[in-house]
């Protein structure tokens, strides 16, 4: 159908936000050039060491990893020989830092030769940091609040700086760019977010009766639905186009060997997201429920679908749930194409699944869509 031109503001929002997010999180991940090993008296990867927190080991085991403990020298040796691609470095005080709630640092040391391993290590470190952070916040909060739990302290706790930070170091030549991971994740999250929120504007049009007005002007209901879908898809595609451009030209992101496949996956994800937005509009009665469900869906599906951390470091059951989201299929395809060197044919199943998502969402929308508001 014809063009619906509107809403320059929300488009800006859709484009600026993911960039800010991806930027901020990438900064937090940023590497530095110092050689590894300068950090004083540090112990190497996990396990048993005086008070090394058992829940972190448990977290690793949960995710299907066995903690292999080495000395720093041994680990660096192995790294130099190419036996391992990298390791996680926990500072000596890490175990005690957590119970006391003081700051701690996890370092990721990698050779950089194997981007897959690099990514994996970073993912693990990040997940661990997240977990430790929760524990530490709770510890700090409990300690601070135990005495005088007044409002000021509550707000003080909420202003705490990050307790666990990540550092990534490299020994090898080939740089792995962390934004290759973060940008696709935030991109899928925000494209979906904007498409889902778009449901609200459709519901609003139903409430203000512009949809009825279109029908009485002779526009078919199916054309209206198709038009709405195309507008939503167009927004998503614009978002993707701009963000990929910024990624490629400003952040020197690497689209991998088949940039075409990245583009196709992006397009299909935009279509699936748009279809979700229309389906949501067809299912809810009010603006309010449209926007709260959109918010909720976007914020739960994003982590489940691997937008915040790579899914392959998640436990199996979480990966299984993740596969119910379009995000997971898109992110998986992006990671494979951009980081693991996969070719277009490797991600055909992902593409087909995204098409299936779009078709299912679209079919539900078609059946359920109403032009008039319920009373």
């Amino acid at each position, binding site marked *: 159908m*014809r063009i*619906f*031109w*509107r*809403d320059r503001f929300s488009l800006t929002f859709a484009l600026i936000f993911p960039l800010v997010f991806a930027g901020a999180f990438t900064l937090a991940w940023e590497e530095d050039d110092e050689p590894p090993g300068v950090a004083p008296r540090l112990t190497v990867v996990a396990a048993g060491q005086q008070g090394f927190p058992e829940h972190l080991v448990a977290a690793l085991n949960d995710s299907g990893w066995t903690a292999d403990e080495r000395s720093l020298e041994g680990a660096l040796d192995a790294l130099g020989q190419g036996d391992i691609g990298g390791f996680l470095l926990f500072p000596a005080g890490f175990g005690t830092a957590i119970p006391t709630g003081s700051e701690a640092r996890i370092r990721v040391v990698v050779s950089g030769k194997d981007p897959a391993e690099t990514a994996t290590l970073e993912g693990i470190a990040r997940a661990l940091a997240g977990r430790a952070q929760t524990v530490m916040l709770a510890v700090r909060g409990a300690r601070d609040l135990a005495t005088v739990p007044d409002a000021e302290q509550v707000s003080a706790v909420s202003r705490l700086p990050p307790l666990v930070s990540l550092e990534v170091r490299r020994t090898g030549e080939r740089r792995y760019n962390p934004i290759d991971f973060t940008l696709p994740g935030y991109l899928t999250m925000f494209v979906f977010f904007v498409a889902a929120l778009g449901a609200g504007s459709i519901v609003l049009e139903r*409430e*203000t*009766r*512009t949809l*009825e*007005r*279109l*029908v*009485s*002007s*002779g*526009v078919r209901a199916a054309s209206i639905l198709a038009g709405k879908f195309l507008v939503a898809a167009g927004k998503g595609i614009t978002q993707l186009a701009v963000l990929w451009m910024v990624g490629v030209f400003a952040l020197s992101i690497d689209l991998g060997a088949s940039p075409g496949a990245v583009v196709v996956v992006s397009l299909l994800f935009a279509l699936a997201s748009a279809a979700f937005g229309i389906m949501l509009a067809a299912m809810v009665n009010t603006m309010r429920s449209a926007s709260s469900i959109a918010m909720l869906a976007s914020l739960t599906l994003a982590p489940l679908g691997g937008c915040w951390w790579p899914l392959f470091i998640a436990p199996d059951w979480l990966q299984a749930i993740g596969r119910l989201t379009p995000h997971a299929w898109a992110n998986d395809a992006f990671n494979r194409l951009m980081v693991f060197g996969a070719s277009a044919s490797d991600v055909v199943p992902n593409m087909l699944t995204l098409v299936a998502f779009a078709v299912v969402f679209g079919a539900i929308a078609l059946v359920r869509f109403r*032009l*008039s508001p319920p*009373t």
Partner: protein
Amino acid sequence: METYLQAEALAKHFDGVAAVEDVSFVIHTKEIFGLLGPNGAGKTTTIRMLSTILAPDSGDVRIGGHSAVREGDEVRKRIGVCPQELALYPELSAFDNLVFFGRMNGLPGRAAKARARALLAETGLDDRGGEAVKKYSGGMKRRVNIAIALMNRPKLLFLDEPTVGIDPQSRNKIFETVLGLRDEGTTVLYTTHYMEEADRLCDRIGIMDRGRIIAVGTPAELKRQVGDPGKTTLEEVFLRLTGRSLRD
């Protein structure tokens, strides 16, 4: 007198509750027909059925010789609908709203723009036509709402409570527009719950209450049922017919 619209035994129930029941009336070509009734009388539901937005449970409507139930497309070509709500895009300018709906009516781009400009001038909005509608006063928004319905030069115009909650100046402007349209040959169906308005504007009036039309006639004919047409008001007619005041 020629009949332009003929409604026959229209009925609509929502969840078993009758919103409109056994509504039949005719509207003659080039007249302003008023549907007068209190809140919830069924005026909007009737208009929605007449304008093909809502399918009646039973009954039919013929407009310009075509059935609204079976020949929706033919009917839609002949009608303009101004809903009770402000059915427009507040972020867009009045001009863009008009052009957009004009294009949706099937007008080519250039024709839509020309028509939009003419309508803005006619409704006294030409100097602010480029501003976003959300910045307009209530009365100006109402005028845009009506102008949109005129984009396709309808033979029959539905106006659903077009003057609710607006300033006297906009109201007078709207009256002028409606009277002008009739003089140009447009047939108008006008709903309202303001009796003075119906009295002043309408050639004939159907009084509606609880989903039914309880009386039809010229204002003078209706008043004559109660007493001297020069001295009675439609309010008194309604009171006599229903035992209730229209304002309740």
